[in-house]
């Protein structure tokens, strides 16, 4: 995958920081860490009720964390000079990500092991693997996972259409700029607005224009959300409408970066349009294609907004995605522990799937290139 390709960074002579600055930096970092730890310990003791002094909420801890991060960065510069300055480029993003991802994820693992229903009076209770056990018999969850397989596979269809559009746009046409802007527009629209614009009004059974057109073409009963396959396809079509432009732009960029000589050589060799596409363009575009397909599948696995707002998973769970199902577990059943357990299992499945895909794709693109 292209995002993982590394260019070797250069080596520049390193300067040594003088001893006193070093000591000062070390003292600063140590002091800041001490204050941070002290604040956390005080707040924890306050929260469990051992001591009365403490803050009303945890927000001051956030401020202390921020100050600690700044002190740590300053300490790095003082202690390590030039190398510390370089570390400073990376540190903000690292501290930010660690704070907002690592803690919530581990906290989520803890919640997943709780029997916690917000609407019951009892409050959270530790239940170990009970949530996982009830997941095994939850047909709706497995159904949603099955639907995700369909939605993910449909990315190939989106890719085919997007490739065709990218080829059209890179052909010699008039008004290319106009078409490019127009083809890009659906990407800018919010899925929630699209849910209403297309799902609830264009496809409306009684007087939506799409239903009228379908009746005119001979489909007597244009119910887009009645049968399960039709509903699934309609949801998929709406998601494709929003997301095809993204794939198209990346492919278009790849096509434009392709050397012109290759195309001309194929033409000289007597290849017709289809042959030069299949034997020249497509193989050259394969690395870009794999990258965009993987990114698109990652985004597809998060699909929720359109489903929540148009069908709410119906009819009978036919259009449910994992995200929209868990959303309903949270909102309708207030079953917090169970929902989080389902989400964690889903995350584990995604990680396994993506690791496999990255492995395979790396081997695949290398063999061709």
């Amino acid at each position, binding site marked *: 995958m292209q995002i993982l390709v590394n260019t070797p960074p250069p080596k520049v002579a390193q300067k040594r920081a003088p001893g006193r600055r070093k000591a000062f930096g070390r003292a600063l970092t140590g002091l800041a860490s001490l204050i941070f730890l002290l604040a956390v310990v005080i707040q924890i003791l306050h929260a469990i009720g051992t001591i009365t002094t403490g803050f009303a909420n945890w927000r001051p801890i956030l401020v202390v964390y921020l100050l600690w991060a700044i002190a740590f960065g300053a300490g790095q510069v003082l202690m390590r000079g030039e190398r510390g300055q370089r570390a400073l*480029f*990376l540190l*903000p993003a*690292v501290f930010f990500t660690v704070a907002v*991802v690592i803690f*919530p994820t581990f906290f989520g693992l803890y919640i997943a092991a709780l029997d916690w229903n917000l609407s019951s009076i009892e409050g959270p209770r530790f239940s170990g693997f009970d949530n996982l056990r009830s997941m095994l018999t939850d047909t709706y969850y497995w159904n949603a996972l099955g639907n995700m397989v369909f939605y993910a596979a449909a990315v190939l269809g989106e890719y085919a259409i997007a490739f065709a559009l990218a080829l059209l746009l890179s052909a010699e046409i008039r008004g290319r700029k106009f078409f490019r802007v*127009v083809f890009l527009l659906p990407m800018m629209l919010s899925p929630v607005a699209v849910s209403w614009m297309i799902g609830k009004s264009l496809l409306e059974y009684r007087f939506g224009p799409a239903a009228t057109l379908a009746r005119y073409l001979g489909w007597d009963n244009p119910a887009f959300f009645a049968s399960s396959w039709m509903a699934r396809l309609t949801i998929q079509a709406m998601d494709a409408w929003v997301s095809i432009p993204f794939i198209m732009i990346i492919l278009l960029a790849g096509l434009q*970066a392709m050397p012109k000589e290759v195309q001309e050589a194929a033409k000289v060799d007597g290849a017709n349009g289809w042959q030069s596409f299949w034997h020249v363009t497509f193989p050259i575009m394969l690395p870009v294609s794999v990258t965009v397909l993987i990114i698109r599948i990652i985004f597809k696995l998060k699909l929720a907004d359109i489903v929540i707002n148009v069908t709410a998973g119906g009819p009978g769970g036919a259009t449910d995605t994992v995200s929209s199902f868990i959303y309903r577990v949270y909102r309708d059943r207030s079953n917090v522990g169970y929902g989080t357990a389902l989400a964690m299992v889903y*995350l584990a499945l995604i990680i396994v799937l993506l690791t496999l895909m990255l492995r395979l794709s790396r081997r695949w693109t290398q063999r061709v290139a």
Partner: protein
Amino acid sequence: MTLLIASDSVRRRLVAPRVRRTFGRAAVYAALLLWTFICLFPIYWTVTTSFKSAVDVTQAHLIPWLDFQPDWKGWRSLGLSPDTLFGTSTARSEFVNRFVNSIITSVGASTLALIFGSLAAYGLSRFRYKFAWMRNDDILFFFMSQLILPPVVLALPFLVLYKALALLDTSFGLILLYTLTVLPIVIWIMRDQFNSIPIELDEAAFVDGLSTWGAFLRIILPLAFPGMAAAFILSLVLCWNEYFFAALLTSTDAKTLPVMVASQTGSQGINWWSMAALSTAAIAPLVLIGIFLERYIVSGLTTGAGK
């Protein structure tokens, strides 16, 4: 007999290319126009519906002035039509409040992500890091792997966490979360952008006596403007349209536009004109951005994919 076949095939070879080329061009333009229609019709339908009355909706009138008489109906219900614009309107004040929230949240998150992301991307593109067992590739993978986290995984921990931090229903809380979701994309685009800038420029800056940060801020960053514009616009699009977290983490004060649109969708069929007006207002800013800043998006992504 054989002669006849030969001459026939010769003639066909002479005529065919021109016919086929005209036919091919017609097919290309037909396909282009078909997709243009597919892209534009839903937008056209929404915008026109906001000017329709109930009869025009049910009878599927499509073309203003020819088919139906446009009316400010939908916009009046939002308090945004010419006659209600200067009066007081609760619907308008709610809408404006959500609109401002959306702007604050999406611009705030995109700016924050752009700052963090550009710094990290420059570092990863120019220097060699080692943190425990992690090297540049591993650190990059760590950032990119945040992309796969589905919102449902973070939703509940954040709900509990924000309750403890008193960040529920605040724009600041949403900004932090949105920054996290777009940071990998910013790093991805910006790293490719920095990789495409020759390293000799950095070295020339060092020779001129600039420090590491001086070279970055004064020489490299201005050159990376196309990538920054693309990353910022893409982040803006993603944050402006985000619904899942906003629906779970905001209730009154910090509610964003998608949440407002979604809450109105429940009552379907009755108020088509006001729903259409609301949808139009919600998509208008990004449609304008798409029309006027399209070249930045494309050129920024080009450096990413065309390597």
